[in-house]
């Protein structure tokens, strides 16, 4: 179906030649493990409408689980330090504002290269980790700037695309947009109207088209969960996006009224789990928007560990889409190192 669709629009040919190395070295190499089973990267499957139809989500039960899950798990002392460091290593440090400039993006990249001050790194004894964030996430206009600023660092550049954040410009233009900005990673938004209308085929075709255009670049599909609103919609959109070949599913643009919440995260991780169990393929998860505190980072990591397992605690399959969270984590780490909370002005900003 997807292929036909792509042919119809004539946009499958001529994939951008500037694509980066794929994240997994070979497509048939296992990238994750779930309950003892090795999982491959997602190649997508034909749209399965029966599966979408069978999706059931009970809102109050999900809310209860989200509420108790974070009360059931906690990490303390050095373990907490390790978890916070892990959160940093899974960050997509993001700036997506109307007032972004090249200089602003360079500052962000500098912070991405050195998320913690050297003094703190030394005190914690973690020099060997060579800690960096996973990626920097910017608008298309700043992709070149970010690429240059991050050269040789191993930090990836992600561009938001396809009419971000509304995703309502014409399909051909959105596809052209992907072609223009695709580098290593790309965050695309879906047409929410397809979900409200139950037009799963249209949604599938759209995401499949995006994926084809992306080539080997890493594609994160933003569902706009704050717009979709019902958890069942979130689950169904998650499945369609995964079937269409998403490498990651991502909660929100950060521009909706409500962004990443734990109930939404729980529904999406359960969808990822079921997709993995049914297909043997692993899809990553990225909560974004409204994540500001170190405590939240621990809660989300615990959610991943509980629902999906250790494979989803790595940047290959888990990212935080954040801008302010790092500052709070720095203060927590400083507390661990010195026993005192520092003022935020003591930590260099992006």
């Amino acid at each position, binding site marked *: 179906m997807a292929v036909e669709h792509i042919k119809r629009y004539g946009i499958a040919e001529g994939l951008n030649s500037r694509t980066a190395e794929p994240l997994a070295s070979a497509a048939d190499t296992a990238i994750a493990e779930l*309950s003892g089973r090795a999982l491959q990267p997602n190649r997508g499957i034909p749209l399965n409408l029966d599966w979408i139809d069978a999706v*059931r*989500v*009970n809102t*109050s*039960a*999900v809310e*209860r*689980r989200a509420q*108790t899950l974070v*009360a*059931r*798990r*906690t*990490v*303390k*002392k*050095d*373990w907490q*330090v*390790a*978890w916070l*460091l*892990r959160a940093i290593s899974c960050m997509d440090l993001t700036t997506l504002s109307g007032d972004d400039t090249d200089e602003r993006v360079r500052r962000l990249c500098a912070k991405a290269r050195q998320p913690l001050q050297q003094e703190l790194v030394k005190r*914690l*004894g*973690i020099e*060997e*980790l060579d800690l960096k964030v996973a990626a920097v996430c910017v608008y298309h206009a700043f992709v070149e700037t970010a690429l240059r600023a991050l050269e040789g660092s191993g930090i990836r550049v992600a561009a938001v695309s396809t009419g971000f954040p509304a995703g309502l410009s014409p399909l051909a233009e959105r596809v052209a947009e992907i072609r223009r900005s695709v580098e290593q990673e790309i965050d695309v938004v879906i047409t929410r109207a397809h979900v409200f209308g139950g037009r799963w085929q249209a949604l599938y075709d759209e995401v499949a088209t995006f994926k084809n255009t992306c080539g080997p670049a890493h594609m994160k599909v933003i569902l706009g969960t704050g717009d979709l609103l019902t958890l069942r919609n979130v689950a169904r959109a998650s499945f369609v996006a995964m079937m269409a070949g998403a490498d990651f599913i991502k909660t929100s643009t950060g521009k909706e009224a409500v962004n990443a919440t734990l109930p939404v995260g729980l529904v999406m991780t*359960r969808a990822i789990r*079921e997709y993995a169990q049914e297909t043997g393929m692993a899809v990553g998860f990225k909560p974004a928007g409204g994540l500001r505190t170190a405590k939240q980072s621990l809660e989300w*990591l615990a959610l991943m*560990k*509980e629902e999906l397992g*250790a494979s989803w*605690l790595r940047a290959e399959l888990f990212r935080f889409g954040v801008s302010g969270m790092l500052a709070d984590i720095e203060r927590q780490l400083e507390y661990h190192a010195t026993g005192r909370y520092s003022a935020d002005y003591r930590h260099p900003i992006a």
Partner: protein
Amino acid sequence: MSIVEKFVSMEYGPAPEDPREALTWLDRHERRFGHFINGAWQPPVAGGYFSTADPSTGEKLAAVAQGTAADIDAAVRAARAALGPWQALSGHARARHLYAIARLVQKHSRRLAVLETMDNGKPIRESRDIDIPLVARHFYHHAGWAQLLEQEFPGFVACGVVGQIIPWNFPLLMLAWKIAPALSTGNTVILKPAEFTPLTALAFAEICQEINLPRGVVNIVTGDGSTGEALVKHADVDKIAFTGSTEVGRAIRKATAQSHKKLSLELGGKSPFIIFEDSDLDSAVEGLVDGIWFNQGQVCCAGSRLLMQESIAEKLTAKVRDRMTTLRIGAPLDKAIDIGAIVARVQLERIERLVNQGVAEGAICWQPPTALPSRGLYYPPTLLTNVHPTSIVAQQEIFGPVLAAMTFRTPREAVEFANNTAYGLAASVWSESINVALHVAAQLKAGVVWVNSTNLFDASCGFGGYRESGYGREGGREGLFEYLEPAWFKHAPALKRAARRASKMPTPPCRPLTGR
């Protein structure tokens, strides 16, 4: 292990709750407690002391007085003497005492939670987030009823002196379920906590002292079954409220049958947990975790019989097994533990015996590969499949973390299996179809039916059973009737005579009391 190694392993690490405040409290009492009678600590008249221990370590926590008939008699006399002045207080004045208790429970919530966990073995998360907040909630709720009593229950009066016997699975919460409605309706109380878990009741006694509750209104007598028996048999007790096993409940009913004593029983259960094919399966699995692996399954309303529609049985059991492997078992004081210790060796042996019997009958036993702590009383979460309604594990209450799974074909069959039990305490129905859920829920013979949820409790909602799960309700408006009687009861001449005779004669005459 360095931070870098922890960064690689991403384990949770230990997160112990600080027990110092609770230990200091025990030490302040020199780890020895008498009975709490007439507002003061009294050494046992004749019974001596027995010890209570932490089931997760085996360490002795404190020595507690063994109550005998003499101690019970002293407590009943104190309660009888306190009754008049307590009832003379206005509803608002009684409410003030209940509010004060609720506030102090909140103030001491951390100490109470730790004490509960040490004495019982339940995870600190549960005592901290569920037990103790519900205790406070019960006292707040019933403080409100004390204020409203006269206008809401005209023509009703308190039973009088109430004997209450509570189990070890939710020690302080069961105390609250018993004492809060009794006090709010103007009764005075003699409470006997379970012998395995008396400590929080004793901490509660101290709270009564702290708020200057009138002497004798609450009396706590500790001890074993014989102490409870003395309380049940005491002639000057007007009502017995019991929560515990069906076996003991039956004995209590016999013992009180020929007396004037009012009785409420909250007993065992073998509650069905019904999952239809159109339910949110992942959420239903979490429901099971809250249903059968809550408090190590030592819950009277635990969803211990899993009934799943045939079409989803395989998928569901796979999900259940996956979920069981992520349950963390270990030191109950650790904040990231899901399953703590079993309360006592005798209970652990009972669980082992029943599971072995089930397996001998053909059940397939699955337990996650999680290692159990090397010391302490632990039993792993257990899933039994290939179970049939005839199996012993489908019939008998195990009171442990053991789930017996069976299948059904149609909603009608689900109802049939669910009701095919001597018990009738609780049930849980999972379906995303409102028609199926409500149609089935209405047909279940159970005191409480949860739809797409389980083990939700509130002080405003009555709880109790059908059949061998007992009778009487606790909580809500309906719960208050267990502690009230129509005023004319007390004055009806025939009843007065019967009551007088009952209190004088060793074997009271069997005379039907009209109006019950």
